[in-house]
């Protein structure tokens, strides 16, 4: 009797539409996040992540509408991130039907946001998203990994492992750990990054970045991930949720 490893598809949503090309068969509208969410639910996804990449905050209402409509038709947990700046943003997303809210840059700029959000809504719905990479030449941190911003384009010199520890201390109930080195490579998760963070934090870790083949998932879990997140391999239908779960189960890891 153990909690199962969660397999989580991530959808990038821009102005209410899924971007990064989704190539799902049997969908009337492959760009509709609500329909995709339902398809992933049916396929056995344990949770969904929506990353709102809408540039203008004026268009944020579209996101709330998407979250609202998704929560009306899909009965698995939904995490929403992107553009979250204030506790009130948490409130709006939770009220729209999100179960957890992920925060990234805003927490880096103002760590107290984590405390405020956890105090108001509980740590269980506060996810700290950390975009980490190996330190480039000239940059040094204790762990050898630094936090980046702007989709990995800018380094901060902040120790990524230390930031995860601090974030959890301040109130994050979960770490969404994105490897910016592995992201897009489809060469596997960064197991060293995962194990370094696992050694220091006791909140659950969602591993993200690098999933390409079925063999990639078990090492991430063995390194300490509680959940594995992937985007394009699922969207393009190269791997199914069921195949990933079968691979995990074959390694004696618990799955739903």
């Amino acid at each position: 009797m153990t909690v199962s490893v969660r397999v989580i598809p991530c959808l990038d949503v821009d102005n209410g539409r899924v971007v990064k090309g989704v190539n799902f068969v049997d969908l009337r509208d492959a760009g509709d996040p609500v329909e995709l969410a339902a398809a992933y639910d049916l396929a056995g996804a344990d949770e969904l992540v929506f990353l709102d990449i809408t540039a203008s905050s004026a268009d944020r209402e579209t996101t709330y509408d998407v979250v609202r409509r998704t929560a009306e038709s899909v009965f698995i947990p939904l995490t929403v991130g992107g553009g979250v700046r204030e506790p009130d943003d948490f409130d709006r997303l939770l009220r729209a039907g999100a179960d957890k809210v992920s925060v990234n840059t805003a927490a880096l700029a103002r760590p107290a946001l984590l405390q405020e959000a956890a105090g108001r809504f509980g740590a269980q719905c506060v996810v700290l998203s950390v975009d980490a990479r190996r330190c480039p030449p000239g940059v040094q941190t204790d762990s050898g990994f630094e936090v980046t911003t702007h989709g990995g384009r800018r380094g901060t010199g902040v120790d990524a492992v230390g930031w995860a520890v601090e974030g959890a201390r301040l109130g994050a109930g979960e770490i969404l750990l994105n490897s910016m080195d592995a992201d897009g490579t489809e060469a596997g998760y960064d197991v060293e990054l995962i194990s370094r963070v696992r050694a220091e934090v006791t909140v659950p870790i969602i591993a993200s970045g690098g999933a390409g083949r079925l063999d990639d998932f078990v090492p991430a879990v063995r390194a300490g991930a509680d959940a594995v997140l992937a985007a394009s391999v699922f969207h393009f239908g190269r791997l199914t949720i069921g195949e990933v779960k079968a691979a995990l189960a074959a390694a004696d890891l618990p799955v739903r």
Partner: protein
Amino acid sequence: MTRPGVVVLDYGSGNLRSAQRALERVGADVVVTSDVDAALSADGLVVPGVGAFAACMEGIRSVRGDSLVDRRLAGGRPVLGICVGMQILFESGVEHGLATEGLGEWPGVVQELRADVLPHIGWNTVRPPEGSALFAGVEDERFYFVHSYAVTSWQLAATDPHIPVPGVTWSHHGQDFVAAVENGPLCATQFHPEKSGDAGAALLRNWVSSLG
């Protein structure tokens, strides 16, 4: 057959929309409100709850949910607590060393689980008692949990032979903890049935179909 009327008690705690939709999906007419009269007269009352025990107790008291639950149970009217909505039914909750008084429907203290990884987030198995009505058909399914605190020992023994023994369902994360209780009109789950996919829907259907 008319649809049973269910009130989801709104006292400012978390995502109520999912609970509403999940209950509607299984055949209930659902109203989300803090109105005491509506909550008293409904066929079933759902007490949700996320976040801190102390904050939920404060919220419950602010809408007079404490006496509401008492009055419903005195009349044998069904109540379902979910997550922290279950925890506050116990005597007290201890968070960061501070104890907060609960509704005291059941003896027991809600405490932080001893586990390597907390919060306990994800889908876990359960061990329902023999003949559980709530878990009928979904005994072997996984349900979605998200919590750090739980009741780890069940202290309510059968003292009166005329009162049925409460059915206690256990789960495990680091240690055994109470995942659900079926006690006459008062039921509760530590997990979120409204977020537990088809298994959760089946459980809610079991509960809704038992209403008046």
